């Protein structure tokens, strides 16, 4: 029987992570994400897991990579300033292909900004925050029940493709509570990394079979010895500067995501098929966009909502398809124009694309989106 829960978004992140099999959390407290660490500190010992408060955010990121290589599903949680600090080790996680989950509860402003207020200004940093060509999977749910299921999906995608997965929420979702029936285990699957079956002496940590993209992953301390380095490496895990080997390995790493879009992509569409005005919005802002669309329909304007749930990789083909059928697009976001850049790129069209953008720590309200739709209708 489903159990009604009254968790805040941050509590949902912690409980869903545990349901997904996460048994290691390392973090450094930062508003508005701290409750995730607080709940994990209490809950993980109850589940025979481990919680560590590290000396800073980059160390926390390092700790979860270490736990992951030792075979434990792991995560950390932070907000903008801490997310900046983690970038170096997020790149390391990509390079050594360590599955892990990073929750970013976004707050307002650059730098220390507006610690207790929401923002969505880390969208581009999520994609391009760490240097070099690398994959990014980032999920941005808008409802707390959806957040629960997307947290589980984040762990599943990270285990399956051996990549760090970012869950991008904000202060609104992190601190609000919304009662819902907690998903029962028969509503989701839990995926675990594929371990090698060969004897330890034959194991190459980055070797893939023909037609495959994700190497099997041994855990430390189980008899398989392997080297994990941020340097470009060959299938043995040891550094190489061989140009063809390095090129092919980086191409393979990107292909893990680009060749599996059907499984990774996720979005919600509301009345898009006959929409003349398309609203694109994500996360908590998309909830206001949804009510704006309903309001416009009441007034006889054919508006529709496209809400990416997987924000990276960006669902460009679907946006292109919808852009061909609409007169104009309004992109609503709590930043000064980040997702709109992706929408423009994906739409690849001369139709009018305008932003409904706001920073300052207060949400974009439905009436503001309504006004913007009217402007282009």
């Amino acid at each position, binding site marked *: 029987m489903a159990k009604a829960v*009254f968790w805040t978004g941050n509590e949902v992140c912690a409980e869903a992570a545990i349901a997904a099999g996460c048994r290691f959390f390392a973090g450094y407290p930062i508003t508005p994400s701290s409750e995730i660490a607080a709940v994990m500190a209490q809950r993980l010992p109850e589940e025979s897991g481990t919680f560590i408060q590290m000396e800073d955010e980059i160390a926390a990121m390092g700790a979860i990579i270490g736990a992951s290589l030792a075979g434990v599903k792991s995560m950390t949680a932070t907000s903008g300033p801490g997310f900046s600090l983690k970038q170096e080790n997020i790149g390391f996680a990509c390079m050594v292909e360590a599955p892990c989950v990073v929750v970013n509860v976004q707050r307002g402003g650059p730098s220390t900004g507006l610690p207790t207020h929401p923002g969505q200004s880390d969208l581009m940093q999520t994609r391009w925050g760490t240097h070099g060509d690398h994959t990014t999977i980032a999920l941005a749910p808008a409802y707390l029940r959806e957040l629960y299921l997307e947290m589980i999906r984040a762990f599943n995608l990270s285990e399956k493709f051996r990549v760090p997965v970012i869950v991008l929420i904000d*202060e609104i979702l992190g601190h*609000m*509570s*919304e*009662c819902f029936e907690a998903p029962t285990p028969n509503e989701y699957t839990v995926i675990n990394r594929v371990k090698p079956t060969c004897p330890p002496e034959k194991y190459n940590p980055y070797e893939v079979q023909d037609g495959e993209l994700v190497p099997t992953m041994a855990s430390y301390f189980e008899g398989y010895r392997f080297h994990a380095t941020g340097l470009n490496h060959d299938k043995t895990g040891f550094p190489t500067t061989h140009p063809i080997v390095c090129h092919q390995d980086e191409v393979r790493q990107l292909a893990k995501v680009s060749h599996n879009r059907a499984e990774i992509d996720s979005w919600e569409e509301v009345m898009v098929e006959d929409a003349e005005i398309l609203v694109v919005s994500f996360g908590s802002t998309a909830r*206001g966009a949804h009510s704006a669309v*309903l309001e416009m329909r009441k007034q006889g304007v054919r508006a529709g909502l496209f809400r990416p749930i997987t924000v990276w990789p960006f669902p460009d083909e679907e946006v292109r398809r919808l852009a061909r059928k609409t007169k104009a697009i309004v992109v609503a976001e709590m930043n000064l124009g980040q997702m709109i850049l992706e929408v423009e790129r994906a739409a690849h069209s001369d139709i009018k694309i305008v932003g409904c953008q706001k920073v300052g720590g207060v*949400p974009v309200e439905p009436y503001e989106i309504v006004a913007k739709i009217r402007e282009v209708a």
Partner: protein
Amino acid sequence: MSNRFEVRLSAVGGQGVILAGDLLAHAAYEEGKFSVQSPTYTAQVRGGPTKIDVIIDTEKILYPRTTAIDFFLSLAQRSFDAFAVGLKPDCTILVDPNLVHDCKGRANVFRIPIIELTRTKLGRMVYTSVVALGAMVELTGVVKHETIRKVVEEHAPPGTETQNLKALDVGFAAAAAVKAEVSR
């Protein structure tokens, strides 16, 4: 058909309005409704102005923040000054007249000495928020008396059930009395 009802409970930190908002949301759920709660988030846990917004609807709630508030409670002048914004013109307002002296000319203000009632009828200030909750439910009818009684009884720390239910009744009765006075 959306039946959105927006409630803002404000006070100074420590008076228990966050708990009252929580109980209201549980009652809404008991009646098969949807609810979203957002507390203010400041560094001030004790003594600073604090509030919780609770949105109740018969349909799934989309925009999670308030748009036009139907009911506003204030237990401190500072919280009235800070949070009496975004209220509907006909918003029902409940204040403790011993603590909130200036209601900025707002109409539809109900004045109940919640703190004094709690002290004299219950003896312990910890019941303040439940008295306020009872008054709020009586004034708005947003949930049924029996639903809020059930929720308060279930959530009361063991041994305090009777006193908490009494606190609700004190709130119900005080609000019924001011309503009667207004209609006279």
